[in-house]
């Protein structure tokens, strides 16, 4: 029914009053002539009120003449009449036109450029590069050649693996994926030493090129030369510089200490909580305080509410801060359990430090209780390659 109503509104209709004695005949004749009448209301004995389409109204004239009744137009409704009235208010129509054209014109410019995913290159560098090609905020978005921008960025900047250029509304979004740069390798012709990268006890030295400076069982410090790149020529007693190469395995130590108090403060939620809402416009915010936080100890939780599930960029942000009351209790921990957990924690930390190629030789754990604090030392001895290339300075 709503569809018919909307259709009628679009086509335009008139509300008429029909006065006469044989109004039923009027209705029958209209129906027979396929004139669509609706919402017919009996006002009194000689009066009917009804709605009829503009087209039907013209056709009604014949019926009216036959029946001999009087028709009066009460109201005209619908788009055609509205447009007719607008004809006399040209400035209003003009205003509407200006309004839409301003919206269209303003939305056809790029107002902001966003660069996502850049790490090695700063925003300014990329912006400058774009500005050189006359791409900056304020340009018309229809003139932007996305492929051109992409090729410029890929050509000018090294180490980019992928660039995507997107226009969303009035924003130009440039997404950059950078390549992982491989670590620098020393040229094989550059003379160098191999030095110790950490202290340790040498267990094995395999030399491919250069002169060994250490023997098995030697204790080396960090930075000490293990394989020298300077060889003395036997005949001329001149120094020859070579590119030292080889593996030097050494026993190194890693240790980690975890301190855990035996008495631990445990925070327990009591279930009491309160919320504070905040609206942020840029950096300025308005907080809606109810009162000061009435809890002695509490945990703060910040949540951002994104209306429309974050699909639109709103000019403000909504935050909800939740304050949950907690009760502090001192609990004495099970010492065996604590030992185990801190041991696991220490091992996890050590695993991060020890290189993957290293071979674990020995592991030791020492527990110590002092002043209510359980200290756990974990010592791991490994054998690993401690050699590190260092270019010989020619002086």
């Amino acid at each position, binding site marked *: 029914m709503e569809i018919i109503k909307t259709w009628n509104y679009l086509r335009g209709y008139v509300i008429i009053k029909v006065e006469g004695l044989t109004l*039923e005949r009027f*209705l029958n004749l209209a129906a*027979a002539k396929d004139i669509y*009448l*609706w*919402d*017919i*209301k*009996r006002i009194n004995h000689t009066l009917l009120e009804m709605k009829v389409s503009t087209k039907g109204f013209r056709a009604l004239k014949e019926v009216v003449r036959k029946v001999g009744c009087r028709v009066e137009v009460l109201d005209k409704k619908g788009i055609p009449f509205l447009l007719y009235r607008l004809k006399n208010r040209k400035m209003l129509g003009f205003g509407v036109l200006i309004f839409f054209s301003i919206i269209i014109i303003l939305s056809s410019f790029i107002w902001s450029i966003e660069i996502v995913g850049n790490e090695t290159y700063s925003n300014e560098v990329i912006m400058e590069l774009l500005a050189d090609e006359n791409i900056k905020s304020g340009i018309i978005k229809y003139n932007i050649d996305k492929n051109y921008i992409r090729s410029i960025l890929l050509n000018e900047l090294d180490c980019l693996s992928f660039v995507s250029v997107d226009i969303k509304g009035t924003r130009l979004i440039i997404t950059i994926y950078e390549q992982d740069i491989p670590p620098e390798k020393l040229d094989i012709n550059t003379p160098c030493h191999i030095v110790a990268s950490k202290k340790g006890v040498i267990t094995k030295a395999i030399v491919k090129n250069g002169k060994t400076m250490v023997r098995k069982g030697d204790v080396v410090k960090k930075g000490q030369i293990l394989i020298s790149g300077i060889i003395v020529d036997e005949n001329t007693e001149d120094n020859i510089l070579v590119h030292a190469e080889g593996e030097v395995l050494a026993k190194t130590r890693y240790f980690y200490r975890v301190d855990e108090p035996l008495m631990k403060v445990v925070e327990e939620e009591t279930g009491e909580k309160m919320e504070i809402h905040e609206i942020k416009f840029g950096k300025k915010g308005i907080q809606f305080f109810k009162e000061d936080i009435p809890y002695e100890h509490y945990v703060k939780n910040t949540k951002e509410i994104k209306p429309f599930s974050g699909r639109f960029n709103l000019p403000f942000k909504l935050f909800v801060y939740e304050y949950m009351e907690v009760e502090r209790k001192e609990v004495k921990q099970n010492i065996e359990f604590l030992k185990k957990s801190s041991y696991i924690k220490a091992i996890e930390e050590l695993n991060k430090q020890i290189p993957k190629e290293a071979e674990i030789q020995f592991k030791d754990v020492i527990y110590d209780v002092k002043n209510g604090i359980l200290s756990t030392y974990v010592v791991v001895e490994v054998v690993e390659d401690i050699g590190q290339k260092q270019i010989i300075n020619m002086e």
Partner: protein
Amino acid sequence: MKSRVDDFKYNISETFELPKDIVLDLPKIIMIGDLELHISNHKGIIEYTQETLRINSNIGILKVEGTNLELKTILSEEIIVTGNIEKIEIIS
């Protein structure tokens, strides 16, 4: 059934399960609660006031009584009446 022809038509519509309002040219009256009344295949309005509505049809005059009766639409084949319908009578 008035005549033999009508009898025949009735039997046919029974056996072939054809809608009788079409085969026998009868008015079809649909009522939605006491709010709305659809009458298709009518033969014109005889009387219309807010309280009574008399409609001509093949089986006689349909008299609808109620309050605030309104004719929502009138077409050559269908009339829709809304309002508070209290009574329907067939005067044949």
